[in-house]
Structures are given as structure tokens and as C-alpha cells.
């Protein structure tokens, strides 16, 4: 192949990737800025005068949305904190200790990740009900955290592996306890790994649908669940309001993914390949 041809093929390929990745998101953002009547014009109007009308109507016409967004935030922050704290402690153990139990339980953690989540909801549903936890933030926080601890532990293990053992040993000689080593020596040096793990849990919890559908009914309903309820029963002008809500739901994590793309790549590769 001649160099020009290679260059053309590459350019076409890149353009296709961009349209594929960004097109659907741009469609949401643009629709949220159009007058409701113009959203589904065919052919679509690519150039238009943007209006904030849909965002203004969001407060009045989509009253369930902001409480749901608040629930999403509480659940996502809670699950992120819980899973990173416990995974950090476990990641340290898997990085620094060895033995048959350590090795076999590491393998077990990978196997557990493969279980289909809908299956485990069956015994959990009556259990959660029995404990009086249905429709609470706590049940989603615990489930989302539990769902990610195995991957985040593996990510943190690979990051903590990079911290020289000599540092632990020196601190130990100075009489530091295990907990002190963990907090004073390892924590600052594994901060990147913690951030990578936290990003995965946050994005997952912010967007999750299945557990929210099964375990919440009104008080703890999250934004994706409320959006799914609205999208099936929608008509006429509400489309604009829905797309405004969707844009508000997408934007924070979209920015997070774009800005933290290096951490996501590092986390995915250490979690999957080395795990």
C-alpha cells in the first residue's frame, strides 16, 4: 500500500471512531438545547438557535429528577468510600503476604466477579426485606461496593506492588505498627491506584440500573431508574425535558472519564490482565 492510501484509510477510520463514540452523546446534548418540537425533525437540524427552555422546565415538569440525582450522588459516594477503604486494606495484604490461602483466595475473587448479578438478587431480595433495608441508600451502597471490591483490590495490589518493600521494612524497624505503615507509608504512594479504583466504583454506581430496579421503590430511587420510568411513558414536549435531565446526568461522569482517562486505562489493564 502506498503511504497516501494508508493515510486516507487511517483518516477515515479515525473519523468513523469519533462519530461512533461521540455521536450518541452529542445527539443527547443537542436535543436538550432544541425546542421540543424540533428534536425529531427529519432530516435533523444540525445548526439551530440553542435554547435553555428545557432546562428551565426540568425543575417544574420533571419533579422526581433532582431527588433521584441526589440519591445517585449519596449512593455513589458511599459505595466509592466503602469499597476503596476495604479494598485498600486487602490490596496491601495481597501485595505483601503470600501463602496457599492468599493465592487461592485471590483466584476466588476473580471467579466471584464473573457471577451474573441478577442471580444473586434472588436470595438477597427476601433477606434485604427481612432486615428492613429495602428502598434504602444503604442496601445499594453495600451491593455496589461488594460488586467492585474484588476488582479494586486487584487494582490496588498491582499499584502497591510498585511501592518498594524496603520502605515497609524500614518503618517496621522504627517500630511502626501495621496500621501505621498502611496509612503513613503505603497510602500516599498508592494514591493513584486508589483514585483509579474509586473512579470505576463511582461511575458504575452513578449509572447502575438492575440493583436499583429491584431494591428501590421510591425513597432511594436513583436517576437512571427515574429516567427509565419516564422514557417509556413519554409524549410530545416532554422529550426536551427528558434530554435536559439526561444531559445533567451524563455530564459529570463524562468529564470524569475524559479527564481521568489515563487512570482508567491503567486500572483496566492492571485489573484485567494481571488479575
Amino acid at each position, binding site marked *: *500500500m502506498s503511504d497516501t492510501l494508508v493515510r486516507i484509510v487511517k483518516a477515515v*477510520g*479515525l473519523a468513523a*471512531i469519533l462519530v461512533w*463514540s461521540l455521536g*450518541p*452523546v452529542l*445527539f443527547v446534548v443537542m436535543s436538550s438545547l432544541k425546542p421540543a418540537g424540533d428534536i425529531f425533525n*427529519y*432530516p*435533523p437540524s444540525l445548526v439551530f438557535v440553542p435554547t435553555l427552555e428545557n432546562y428551565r422546565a426540568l425543575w417544574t415538569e420533571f419533579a422526581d429528577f433532582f431527588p433521584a440525582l441526589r440519591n445517585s450522588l449519596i449512593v455513589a459516594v458511599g459505595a466509592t468510600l466503602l469499597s476503596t477503604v*476495604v*479494598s485498600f*486494606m*486487602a490490596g*496491601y*495484604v495481597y501485595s505483601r*503476604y*503470600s*501463602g496457599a490461602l492468599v493465592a487461592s*483466595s485471590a483466584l476466588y475473587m476473580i*471467579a466471584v466477579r*464473573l*457471577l*451474573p448479578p*441478577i*442471580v*444473586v*438478587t*434472588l*436470595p438477597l*431480595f*427476601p433477606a434485604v426485606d427481612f432486615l428492613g433495608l429495602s428502598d434504602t441508600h444503604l442496601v445499594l451502597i453495600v*451491593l455496589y*461496593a*461488594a*460488586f467492585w*471490591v*474484588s476488582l479494586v*483490590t486487584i487494582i490496588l495490589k498491582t499499584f502497591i506492588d510498585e511501592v518498594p518493600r524496603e520502605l515497609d521494612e524500614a518503618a517496621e524497624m522504627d517500630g511502626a505498627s*501495621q496500621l501505621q505503615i498502611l496509612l503513613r507509608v503505603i497510602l500516599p504512594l498508592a494514591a493513584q491506584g486508589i483514585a483509579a479504583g474509586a473512579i470505576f466504583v463511582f461511575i458504575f454506581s452513578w*449509572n447502575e*440500573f*438492575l440493583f436499583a430496579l429491584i431494591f428501590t421503590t421510591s425513597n432511594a430511587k436513583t436517576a437512571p431508574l427515574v*429516567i427509565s420510568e419516564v*422514557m417509556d411513558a413519554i409524549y410530545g414536549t416532554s422529550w426536551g425535558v427528558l434530554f435536559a435531565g*439526561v444531559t445533567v*446526568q*451524563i455530564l459529570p461522569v*463524562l468529564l*470524569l*472519564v*475524559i479527564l481521568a*482517562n489515563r487512570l*482508567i*486505562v491503567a486500572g*483496566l*489493564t492492571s485489573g*484485567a*490482565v494481571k488479575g
Partner: protein
Amino acid sequence: MKKPNLGAYILAAPVHILLAMTMTIPAIYIFWLSLNESTYGTGQLFVGLDNYARIFSDPAFWRATSNTFIVVNAIVYLEILLATAIAALLVSGVPFRSLMIALVLVPYSVSEVITVLVWKSLMNPSYGVIGRTIADMGYAMNWSASPVAGLTLVAIISIWQHLPFSVILIYAGMTAIPGSLYEAAEVDGAGRFQSFCRVTLPLLLPTLLIALLFRFAFAFRLFSEVGLLTGGGPARTTEVLGVYLYRDAYRDGAFGTAAATGWIMVVGTLLIASLYLWLMQRSMRNGNV
């Protein structure tokens, strides 16, 4: 490396308590539940293998199984193929590479619910940008009437959502291949295509197997895309195992038969996983590390 002491066990305990409570014990308990008749998980009555006999004689179960098999295979192989092409393009040197990678990740930030909403809007045969265009060419994708159209759209949606994961894995695998091997291939007179087939692919095999393993396990749990797009309809023709189980459990309250379906899903997932782990071990023994 040290032997774990009491402190180490205490530090590792919370993760294992969480996993046991929410994953391991429920997954094992499912097997017991599948041998009982139960409404919403309570009022159990031991019925032996009746639940299995019941789902095996239900045509909707077999429909869901074959739909799952077809859709999951289509999703996983198409996705890995596309991801390999995209990763190869990114590795070959493109302008603004790190920005391109960030943009490839964009679908990862979008909720399944919103992904379905957007593709539903784009593909609508009467007003969607893509749907209307292909309808005008004579290929209307009417998923509320045609199961093939519905499942095709499910596959597209699922691939769009998960492609970033596969691209990143395969991209990382490709960048780990030492450049000296490509130089050697070039000295030996290999072209671009030849060096891709002879150098990249064999060395990438373990990475591809890992990507396949994870994607199969994750695609197997397919639920939201189908549930939100077609709800399993028309007339239960687009149901997959996840939707079949959900309907059984949460619409009809039949937790015993749902648990039987669930146990089949657990065993299926473990079988797929062991197949790929076995292939991985074999490819490593053959020196393709």
C-alpha cells in the same frame, strides 16, 4: 514475601465478608432455592428437581437460551474484532493519540438506560436519524414487531456500551509487544499485513483470550438492553436468560423456578470461564506469552 499474621487476616476480612454476604453465599444458596417452590423467596417447600423439569418443558426458556447464545456470540466476536481494528489503528500512530483514547472511552461514562434511550431515538424508523435513513433504503428496523430487528439493535447497543473495555485491553496488549520484533520482521521483508498476522496476532493471543473471557461472562448477564428496549416482546420472542429470570421472579413471584434458571446461568458462566482459562494455559504452555 511474608506469611500472613493476625493483622493481615483482619485487614483482608472486610472485603471477604462483603463478598461472602452478597455474592458467594447467595450464589450457593441459589442451588438450594432451585430445589424448592417459593414465592418471593419465602414459604419454601422442597420439590426436588421439579423446577428444572418445569423450565425445561417451557418453550420460552429454550427461546431465551437460544437468543442468549446467538446474541452473546454476535456481541462478543464482533466487539473483539472491532476492538482489535481500532487498537491496531491507535497503535499504528495517529495524531492526538491520548485525546483519541479519551474519546474512545466516552461510551463507558453513559448509563445503560441512557444508551438504550439514545439508540431507540436514533434508530426509530419514522423519525430517527439512522432509522429513517435505512428505512428509506428499504430496511426498516421495526423492533416492536420483528425479533430479529430487536435483537440486532440489542447487539449494537451492547457493543457500543462495552467497546471501550475491549479496545483498552487489546490496545494495552499491543503496546506491550516489543518494537524490536517488528524491526526484525521488516528486515526479513514482511509487509504491514504480514507482520500483523505473524507478529501481532500470535503475541496478542493471551490478551485476546482474557478479553473474550471477560466479555463472554459479562455479555451472558445481558438484561437491561433487552428489558428496556423490547421488554422481551413481541410475545416473548426477544427474551434472553436474564429477562426470563427477572420475569419469573419479580413479575410472577416464582423464585424457585427463577433460581433454577439462575443456577443454570452460574454453571454456564463457570463453564465458559474454564474453557477460556484452559485455552489460556495451553497458549502459554506453547510459548505464546
